[in-house]
């Protein structure tokens, strides 16, 4: 019968979409070191300009990427205050990135110019 056939198709469709959701969820969980991360990771841009990190406060989630671009003449770094992560030297006009992890240090500075300070905030905290 047509109705039965249609129902079967609908059921098959539901099962297939469930399977797809589960596998996407697993992939997402694996990709973020066990963190359940529903939204796709974001790439955030921070400019280093006139000896300042802009923006000075950035909301991030685990799995997100942060890219710093140096608009000054002199080299800078973005370095965790406890030195647990570090972009290394970023030359004039160049960029460097890190991927955010759960529990990572959020306060950071420029190793070459310690008065340059900025911070990350976990976007799920607020």
């Amino acid at each position, binding site marked *: 019968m047509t109705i039965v056939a249609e129902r079967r198709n609908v059921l098959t469709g539901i099962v297939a979409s469930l399977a797809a959701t589960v596998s996407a969820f697993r992939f997402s969980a694996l990709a973020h070191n066990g963190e359940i991360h529903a939204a796709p990771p974001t790439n955030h841009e921070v400019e280093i300009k*006139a*000896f300042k990190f802009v923006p000075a406060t950035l909301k991030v989630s685990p799995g997100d990427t942060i890219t710093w671009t140096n608009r*000054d*003449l*002199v*080299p800078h770094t973005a370095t965790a205050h406890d030195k647990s992560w570090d972009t290394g030297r970023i030359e*004039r006009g160049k960029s460097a990135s890190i991927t955010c992890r759960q529990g990572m240090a959020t306060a950071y500075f420029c*190793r*070459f*110019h*310690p*008065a*340059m300070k900025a911070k990350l905030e976990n976007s799920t905290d607020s």
Partner: protein
Amino acid sequence: MMIRHVFIAMAAAAAIGQGTANAQSPADLNDLQIAHVAYVADNIDIRYAHLALAISSNPDIREFAQTMIRDHSAVNEQALALLAKLNAQPEDNFLSRSLQENAEKLIDEMSGLRGAEFDRRYAENELAYHKAVNDLVGNAFIPNIENAEVMALFEAGLEIFQAHEGHAEKMVGMLK
């Protein structure tokens, strides 16, 4: 006879030096002379920094000195690139010569110091030197530079040297 000649020559040179200093003020310098003063000033600070790396074992002083070498070299690289682009040669002048002479004296003095005494003297000099250069750049050079590209470089330079001045100030406070 020879000695008398040397004396006369020295007296004449001193008189010329004095006369030149009186006749000119930093505000009278042209863009190429200003560029040369900045280049000499950058190199002087790089020399102070190398002296600090040779003498000091204080990690903060060493880190600061490395930043001075890195930043002043970057500014000089830009300055040379700009001069090449403008097809211009920097011009020696009374102010660049006077900066150089003072630097020689300071390097002689600081070379004789060791330990905490050197660290304090180096930090104090970095603060005083950046203050003096920033005053010169901000008040005498920038208002008188004619070329827009040279101006942009000096504005960027001033920003950098002001950050150094702040850094030096913190260091002086820490070493007291």
